[in-house]
């Protein structure tokens, strides 16, 4: 595939190429469903790139808690205000119309949306960024209705306060079980960061605690570094039971707080945090944007649906492998999609964006691990250009330095995404 830049030749030409006037002047209506990291980033970027566009965002939540650092907020390491987003404020400040309600249906061929209040919106381009849903029925005995008692808090929202209250009420010597889901899912290092900070929560109070991670996988993000760090920080407190050892949770008795594992074992725990398998949010699946995997296939330049042209799917809902399902990836995809939409509306082929991801996991206030990668579309596929993670064994000074970087990263990611 030949990109615009390759056609223009070397660096000397590049430095003089700005956005074509037609791209800047694109005037059309673009509607975005979902004002999370992906949708809000895309809206703000579209406003900057093509100011003449008529933009609207459909998002029912005026304020919500966000994922990055939510485990730290659960454990009381930071206050919840540090992870709060108010997408409506930023959107209005930038003159972007906000419909504070849910979109209930999308006709992907007519490109028409129906909102909860019955209103219909047509647009030249529609961006769908609704996040994830949970496949509760994959664990026997678990349902959307009883999940609150064994909270995953993986969409933060109402379960966040429940999980925090359960954690704070744990007595000395309690067993905690965290069920980690199979791939792919939102925030690959998240369950292991949660186990770490639940251990910090106990250590800080001088309580004994046993934390079991019952895993549906045999490996996880930053595993070597996590396990070496658990030995150093919380010796003997965290156990990881991989799938190969029968660790996957197959059934739960919510009332009795008891899980049954694939290996035949039964575990009773004072606190169960069952993170179910995941798929794209219902809105995207109902609009015929998902394939048999439950996730939405897209092309890699502008994250346009390969099933319905003119509809873009961003963030956790789309298949962007090798990018992980993270807030940072969603933010970068939002910007790349905005650039692509402006080009397409002007009849131009969009340039291949350089997409980045960095995720920090906090294991203690002065101790963080990171993973990062860079990605770019080559030959119709999203390729990983580079990747790397914190060393498995390192000086405490490096862990502390990464913890300070993590604080800066979280604060700016929130600001960059929500304005």
């Amino acid at each position, binding site marked *: 595939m030949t990109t615009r830049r390759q056609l223009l030749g070397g660096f000397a030409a590049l430095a003089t190429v700005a956005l074509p006037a037609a791209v800047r002047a694109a005037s059309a209506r673009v509607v975005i469903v979902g004002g999370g990291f992906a949708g809000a980033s895309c809206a703000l970027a579209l406003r900057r790139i093509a100011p003449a566009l008529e933009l609207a965002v459909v998002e029912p939540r005026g304020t919500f808690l966000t994922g990055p650092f939510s485990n730290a907020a659960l454990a009381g390491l930071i206050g919840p205000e540090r992870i709060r987003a108010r997408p409506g404020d930023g959107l209005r400040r930038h003159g972007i119309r906000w419909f504070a309600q849910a979109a209930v249906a999308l006709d992907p061929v007519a490109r028409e949306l129906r909102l909860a209040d019955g209103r219909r919106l047509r647009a030249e381009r529609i961006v769908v960024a609704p996040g994830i849903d949970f496949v509760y029925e994959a664990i026997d005995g678990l349902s959307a209705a009883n999940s609150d008692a064994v909270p995953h808090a993986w969409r933060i929202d109402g379960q966040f306060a429940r999980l925090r209250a359960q954690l704070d009420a744990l007595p000395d010597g309690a067993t905690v079980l965290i069920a980690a889901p199979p791939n792919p899912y939102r925030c690959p290092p998240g369950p292991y960061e949660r186990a770490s900070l639940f251990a910090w929560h106990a250590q800080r109070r001088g309580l004994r605690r046993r934390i079991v991670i019952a895993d549906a996988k045999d490996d996880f993000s930053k595993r070597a570094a996590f396990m070496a760090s658990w030995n150093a920080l919380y010796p003997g407190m965290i156990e990881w039971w991989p799938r190969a050892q029968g660790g996957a949770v197959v059934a739960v008795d919510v009332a009795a707080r008891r899980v049954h594992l694939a290996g035949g074992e039964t575990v009773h725990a004072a606190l169960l945090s069952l993170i179910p398998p995941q798929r794209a949010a219902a809105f995207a699946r109902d609009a015929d944007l998902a394939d048999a995997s439950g996730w939405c296939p897209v092309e890699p330049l502008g994250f346009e649906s390969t099933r319905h042209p003119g509809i873009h799917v961003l963030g956790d809902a789309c298949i962007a492998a090798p990018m992980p399902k993270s807030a940072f990836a969603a933010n970068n995809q939002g910007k790349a999609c905005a650039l692509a939409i402006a080009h397409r509306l002007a009849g131009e082929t969009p340039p291949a964006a350089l997409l980045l991801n960095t995720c920090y996991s906090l294991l203690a206030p002065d101790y963080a691990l990171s993973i990062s990668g860079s990605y770019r579309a080559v030959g119709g596929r999203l390729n990983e250009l580079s990747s790397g993670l914190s060393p498995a064994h390192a000086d405490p000074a490096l862990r502390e330095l990464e913890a300070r970087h993590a604080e800066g*990263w979280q604060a700016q990611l929130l600001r960059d995404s929500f304005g």
Partner: protein
Amino acid sequence: MLLRLPAALLFGSCALAPLPAAAASGACPNPELSLGCGSCHGAAPDALPALPRAPAPALYARLARLRDAPYTGTVMPRLLAGLDDQTLQALAAAIACERGGAP
């Protein structure tokens, strides 16, 4: 309470200023390369150091140093590792323009 960071690993911090006119009007080159920078480097309190205001060749030299530094375990060398010199020059040109440094 930022630790002192190894000088070679960080962009220097510099005063924040409104976006230069060139960036705001879309006249800056290669926006597709620089779009990830602002996810970490920006105006949030506690943000990592802002991108420096400097001419493109100086930025290129700094980016190349970051990319080629011996591995120390922080993120910038990993993020730049896959970029060839030409792409890094184009990225430097984008950042220089967006930050209002000379081309």
